[in-house]
């Protein structure tokens, strides 16, 4: 009796294995049929979907995901498809490294990274495997001594220097006194020395103080100290949350300039990750008259970029917050650049490899510059130019919305200090 039971169990086991094998092979067959004639290009993205800075990373990931879905759905690359694996690293460099190594095992030809810390830490790895990388960090140090990292837009240094140039052009009276309000990390500190170099090269501002913020509930003391030193402008290079708290405090103390450079008040300005709709969400009315620069178009201004961004977000069912985020635009843009280099390499009939895409990025200049709809200028790269979009647009918060100030401009002093 027992022997019979064992036999029946054995037969059942064999038949289950057989069924699994048949179903598995059928699925593999269907998958290959579905992509018949097309190739799959693998791309990896590791970023903070959860954890610190995930308020930026989350919409960024959605932007990347949506654009690659769009590419595949609309057959922008013909029968070929892009397969982008997105992994959460919770803003931890060790996890990013592990994700990157997993991606390499999967055979990626292009890599999208996120934070300043992990980009700096993995720089040697990128060089070793010779893979082109677009990070979400615009830290100027990313591209130093590295051939394979390309910044999507002008560096934080360039953004900060451009804002300082804007101050010089629009300040009335004596040499403007400026303080920097920065994140206590490489991300925040990056532009400080470059701004100091620009000042040494003749940029007409006086840097009174560099403040590294903490987790402050109240910035009264700091703001009063800056006022007592005659500071008229505060340049921020950090994330939105500490800027929002500072702006609220400044508004409460009656220190916020109602117009740019108002005497006896402070005008606040900031680089890419300080601004956007999230700042308005956090600071409310305190964000009024905050000046911000980025190379992206924003959805509070009508235009082709806004239309493209909103329609993509709508197509893939994104909510209003993600759809209107400049970090969503940021994610879309890096996906567009990656797609464009694949398209160009394909057009030439060359095999899509890391090297082919790297070469295409380096050739992206002159009449081969690439103009995504969501940036204020073209993306240009070369062996010596590692910042994609060089133009920057200045925006300021007017009645609760970021509005354009003038036309896109480029920094003069960044060239002098390079």
């Amino acid at each position: 009796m027992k022997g019979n039971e064992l036999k029946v169990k054995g037969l059942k086991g064999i038949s289950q294995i057989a069924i699994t094998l048949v179903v598995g092979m059928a699925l593999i067959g269907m998958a290959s049929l579905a992509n018949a004639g097309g190739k799959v290009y693998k791309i990896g993205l590791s970023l903070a979907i959860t954890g610190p800075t995930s308020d930026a990373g989350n919409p960024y990931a959605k932007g990347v995901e949506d654009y690659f879905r769009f590419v595949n759905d609309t057959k922008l690359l013909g029968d070929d498809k892009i397969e982008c694996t997105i992994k959460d690293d919770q803003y931890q460099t060790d996890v990013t490294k592990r994700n990157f190594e997993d991606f390499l095992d999967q055979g990626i030809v292009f890599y999208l990274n996120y934070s300043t810390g992990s980009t700096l830490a993995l720089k040697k790895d990128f060089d070793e495997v010779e893979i082109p990388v677009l990070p979400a960090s615009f830290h100027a140090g990313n591209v130093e001594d590295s051939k394979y990292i390309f910044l999507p837009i002008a560096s934080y240094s360039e953004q900060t220097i451009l804002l300082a140039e804007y101050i010089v052009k629009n300040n009335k009276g004596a040499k403007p006194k400026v303080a920097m309000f920065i994140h206590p990390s490489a991300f925040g500190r990056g532009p400080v020395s470059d701004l100091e170099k620009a000042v040494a090269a003749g940029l007409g501002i006086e840097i009174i103080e560099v403040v590294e913020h903490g987790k402050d509930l109240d910035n009264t003391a700091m703001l009063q100290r800056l006022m007592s030193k005659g500071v008229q402008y505060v340049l921020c290079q950090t994330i939105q949350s500490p800027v929002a708290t500072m702006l609220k405090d400044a508004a409460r103390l009656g220190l916020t300039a109602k117009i740019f450079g108002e005497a006896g008040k402070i005008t606040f300005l900031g680089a890419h990750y300080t601004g956007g709709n999230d700042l308005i969400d956090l600071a409310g009315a305190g964000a009024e008259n905050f000046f911000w620069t980025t190379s992206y178009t924003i959805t509070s201004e009508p235009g082709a970029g806004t239309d493209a961004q909103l329609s993509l977000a709508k197509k893939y069912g994104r909510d209003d917050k993600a759809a209107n985020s400049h970090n969503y635009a940021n994610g879309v843009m890096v996906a567009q650049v990656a797609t464009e280099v694949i398209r160009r390499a394909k057009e030439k009939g060359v095999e899509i490899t890391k090297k082919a895409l790297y070469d295409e990025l380096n050739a992206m200049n002159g009449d081969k510059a690439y103009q995504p709809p969501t940036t204020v200028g073209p993306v240009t790269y070369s062996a010596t130019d590692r910042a994609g979009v060089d133009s920057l647009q200045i925006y300021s918060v007017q009645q609760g919305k970021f509005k354009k100030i003038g036309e896109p401009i480029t920094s003069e002093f960044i060239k002098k200090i390079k």
Partner: protein
Amino acid sequence: MSYFFQIVVSGIVVGSIYALAALGLVLIYKSSRVANFAHGQIIASGAFITYALTVWATIPIYISFFISLIITFFLAWSVERIFLRRLIGEPIISVIMVTIGLASIIDGLIYLTPFGTKNFSFPQFLPSEPIAIAGVSISWTQLVGVIITTLLIGSFSWFFKKSTVGISMRAVSDDQFASMSVGISVPSVFGLAWATAGLSAAAAGGIIGNITGLNFDTLHAFGIVVFPVVILGGLDSILGAVVAGIIMGLIQQFAGGYLDGNWGLNGTGEVLPYIILLIILLIKPHGLFGIHEIERV
């Protein structure tokens, strides 16, 4: 002179909010000798519940704030009932490890909601113009925060000193076995400690969220930011949390107002509280108001 007084006022405001945020840690430690590493997540949860009730359920913020206190009271009580009750009698380190795990679970749950990765701010419900007296200003949000903090801390002090339940909680804190022998239900006391800690954390979350805006990273970080306050105050002392909170707030503001930016110093407001904490702990190892326990063998 207004410069000085403004810094004093800001220091007291910040300090009293620290005290309120620290209160939950003190309440749990006071009854169970456990440091709750999920405290920051409970602070954030309180703020998010208030926001959800106010904005999504369109309940007036005054009411939604109190509802959130009640919800968080029961949430924290449930947490104790489900996860921690079975650990009574186990080594304290096991319970602490569970609170670390709990922090990860709450993190994960919050990341499943829009609050995990999106920023929000409470609708303006107080006058935006600050109150200014002799050049010293305080916002309505800060003032209301200080008033709520004072009320809650006063209530808790009364509760622990005068009410039967409060005295039972203190008795459990002193000696669990002796308390049981006189008929006090230790598990119920632990549950109540977690529940009241949840309530105070939610109040702190609502106030901090009104000041900084609702960003999960910022909010849950306060669970760790207030640890020095609790240690300086003496871990199990409510009065200690209040005094230490205000000391910390004043140190931060004075450092920011007078030291930073001078003599090449920067960020002293972040470091100085820890330096002073170390000095005080060298002199008073149990904190300013902590109980010095002597065990006779």
